[in-house]
């Protein structure tokens, strides 16, 4: 009994195949999903999604969205998703530094919120690469 995982973004389908287990980070912490999980609808925070296929873990950085877990079918809709293998480490590190610099320079409520969000996104991408290296 395997789970069917579908990760969709507005631009394309990032993932659509069967997996053994996933670990998803939501607003209220991380949840692990195994086959025959109870049905859940939850909001997905900006964070890491880890996928296990046959004892091999894969990481993906998600940029916020929604997840629905039905009878062995998981649908995750996010604003953007990147597989950690697709992220360039130096580029992610640079984006993180730029985002941190932007946060210190931000003025006004809206810029502050946007700078915070881009910082979290950059941090997630760097984490995804670090986790892959482990």
């Amino acid at each position, binding site marked *: 009994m395997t789970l069917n995982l579908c990760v969709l973004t*507005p*631009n394309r389908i990032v993932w659509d195949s069967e997996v053994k287990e996933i670990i998803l980070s939501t607003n209220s912490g991380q949840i692990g999903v195994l086959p025959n999980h109870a*049905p*859940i*609808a939850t909001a997905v925070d900006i964070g890491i999604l880890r996928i296990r296929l046959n004892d091999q873990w894969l990481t993906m950085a998600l940029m916020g969205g929604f997840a629905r877990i039905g009878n062995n079918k998981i649908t995750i*809709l996010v604003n953007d998703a990147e597989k950690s293998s697709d992220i360039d480490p130096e580029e992610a590190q640079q984006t993180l530094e730029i985002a941190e610099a932007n946060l210190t320079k931000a003025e006004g409520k809206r810029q502050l919120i946007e700078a915070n969000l881009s910082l979290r996104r950059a941090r997630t991408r760097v984490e995804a690469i670090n986790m892959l290296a482990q």
Partner: protein
Amino acid sequence: MAMAALRREGRRFATPLLSSPIRSSIISHSHEEVANGVRSISTQVVRNRMKSVKNIQKITKAMKMVAASKLRAIQTRTENSRGLWQPFTALLGDAPSVDVKKSVIVTISSDKGLCGGINSTSVKISRVLHKLSSGPEKETKYVILGEKAKAQLLRDSKQDISLSITELQKNPLNYTQNVEFDALKIVFNKFHSVVQFMPTVSTVLSPEIMERESEAGGKLGELDSYEIEGAETKGEVLQNLAEFQFSCILFNGVLENACSEQGARMSAMDSSSRNAGDMLDRLTLTYNRTRQASITTELIEIISGASALEG
């Protein structure tokens, strides 16, 4: 050679002989009455018309090719974004006939014209929806995206328009303007194929209405069977869900409408190029006829003049 020289001489004499009002009336008749004795003025006029029709044909052909290339670019994006709202429909169902107090109709249209009838169909459907959902206690407002629908709806429903946004490509949408709604009906043209665009209405319910409906049962009632995680109350999650659903559906709607716009423009420009080609054929025939008639008239005059000199 001599004929051409004589014809040129004839033209130089013709213009001062005719005064302007008579000349303009003769020019206006020159298309239909061929053998009325006027010389090359009529061929000049026909040739001018042919030149302008040919220019228009070139422009419409170019516009068609531009629209075709833009269509190809947008089409892949649209198909990819279609997968985004399908889970929502699977989870929440589509409830176009929910009874609500405040409904807002979002009409998506194009900014530029020359794209066939798609904007008129969207406006027609919006008007029908407005009629359907207005009643004693209910009110309906418009939110308009795009110049063309704004121009059409401004004429008769000016007071019902709460927000209008134009030039979407230059100013990306930000949801800072507050529009209250209980149910949102998004009207756009869905792209089925290059020649087929169906006007569609997608409904998005506000979180409160969703809660009310989910208690009532039906498709939304299945929402309760899902445990909610990620927030304290069900209402909060429903609000997140509603916002996300709205932006997904709006994104998809705008992309589909853009696709339909390019497709409609392609077929409109194609039919006008063909029309221009037909006009050009007819004008060429007219031109040849007037040209031959003027040559015949010249010949007759010269020969009769020569025979008068001899005899």
